[in-house]
């Protein structure tokens, strides 16, 4: 069961969006996110919503997956609306009940913020739904590379991410093994208060950390044996290059950004 875990929420499809250069996808996502913060009216949100719907249509993903991505932020959405309802003042009084008072400005700002968060989340989850973790890492490395001269270790960050992605399944499998071995000897991970359950994880974490350190040591040795000496002088088998479809996607998105900021 553990062997089949997929990392992140990437869903494999053969679509225009999936095949775009990851660098372009990351840049466009950033631009749109910034654009969303400049939107001043509900009309702007409508256009932004239309943009996201178009992207979903082009990505061959089902609606449900994108909507499912909104579930974890449901609480934040409700919280935002409630806070604004009761604490933002201005406009006509809509409701008064004891010390609680709802004014029209509050309702408006609350909904406005909620819609903005919903669009932000669905947009960023579209990025991770259509881009595999490996592509994301590659894209980030390329994009961060110019910042090397300011001391940003772009290659090292990307290498750390790759190794983390590579070892998550290995360590999960190991944790599962240790857990079973300890359950066989009577350890109880499932009952008791949260505090007790957390405490019962200590004997799981100690051997897990020990073995993680041993693995790190082995891996460093294996990397050195294969002539790894940092990003300097290293080449890549797969080089990223922008195609015309990437520029088309950029132009399309830029058009939308301009429209929804103006509105």
């Amino acid at each position, binding site marked *: 069961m553990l062997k089949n875990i997929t990392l992140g929420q990437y869903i494999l499809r053969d679509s225009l969006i999936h095949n775009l250069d990851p660098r372009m996808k990351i840049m466009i996502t950033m631009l749109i996110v910034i654009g969303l913060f400049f939107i001043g009216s509900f009309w702007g949100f409508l256009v932004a919503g239309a943009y996201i719907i178009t992207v979903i249509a082009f990505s061959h993903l089902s609606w449900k997956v994108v909507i499912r991505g909104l579930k974890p932020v449901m609480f934040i959405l409700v919280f935002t609306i409630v806070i604004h309802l009761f604490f933002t003042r201005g406009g006509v009084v809509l409701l008064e009940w004891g010390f609680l008072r709802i004014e029209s400005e509050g309702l408006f700002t609350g909904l406005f913020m909620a819609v903005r968060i919903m669009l932000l989340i669905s947009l960023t989850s579209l990025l991770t739904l259509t881009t595999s973790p*490996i592509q994301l890492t590659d894209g980030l490395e390329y994009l961060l590379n110019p910042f090397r001269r300011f001391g940003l270790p772009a290659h090292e960050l990307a290498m750390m991410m790759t190794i983390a992605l590579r070892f998550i399944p290995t360590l999960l499998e190991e944790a599962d093994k240790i857990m079973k071995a300890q359950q066989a000897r009577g350890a109880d991970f499932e009952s008791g208060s949260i505090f007790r359950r957390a405490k019962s994880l200590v004997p799981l974490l100690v051997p897990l950390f020990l073995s993680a350190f041993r693995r790190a040591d082995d891996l460093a040795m294996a990397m050195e*044996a294969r002539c*790894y000496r940092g990003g300097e002088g290293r080449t890549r*088998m797969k080089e990223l290059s922008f195609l015309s479809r990437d520029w088309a996607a950029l132009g399309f998105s830029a058009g939308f950004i301009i429209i929804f900021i103006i509105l």
Partner: protein
Amino acid sequence: MAFIELKDVSYTYIEGDEPPVKALKNINLSVEEGEMIAIIGPNGSGKSTLAKLFNGLFQPTEGTVTVAGLDTSNQKMIWEIRQQVGMVFQNPDNQLIATMVEEEIAFGPENLGLPPSTIKARVDEALTLVGLEDFRQAAPHHLSGGQKQRVAIAGIFAMRPDCIVFDEPTAMLDPMGRKEVMATIQKLRSEGKTIIYITHFMEEIVDCDRVVILKEGEKILEGTPLEAFQARELIKAADLELPDVPYLVYRLREAGLPLPDEILTPESLVEKLCLLN
């Protein structure tokens, strides 16, 4: 001059306040180009330490190690040496770096700074050699132990080394995986690669050109596999076990059957037994 030369090599582990441990004592060894040499010994005999001396991962405390005329203590040439002497480790899980098989094989050539088209060609070639063409895009954690170890071998092969050191590559594999890895090693051998094979399974050394037995950091025997199997006292002293066939031949001879001593495979045993009538 031999491809790899060890002269009076000793290695001592010094850790904190603990008393120093002498893992290797005065080892002299030369490895010729194109030969397959097995280094065998029980746990704690220093065989893994020895393995790490061949490509400069460890520096000898005393003595010198030279690879193709280059001293491994020469830090300027260390990457040149490591490109020439590749290394496959025991645990397949702890030596794979990338999340995809082809990226994994490309890792070494990428470190050498080769152009992308060359790397691609080498990855294809390595995948064909180990027979994993269909697993190009697979994630390592979806592969079996034997497959992972073959990916590791492909990753080394893609760097075009002259020599590959195998540090107990089959110790963590099931019999199936062991067979796959041994077959791949034989393929590398037929490609003309020099092979240093470290193990504690005596049945795996049958095919080697030469065998070195280590015990407590000392070389106690150097010879052909046959000579190693015949040195029963030494094998016993080194806590090793004779493989089934030589053991059977030994017991049959003890029981009075006039069998020759140089039988190493089941086929030749059958043949010799049939000749007895």
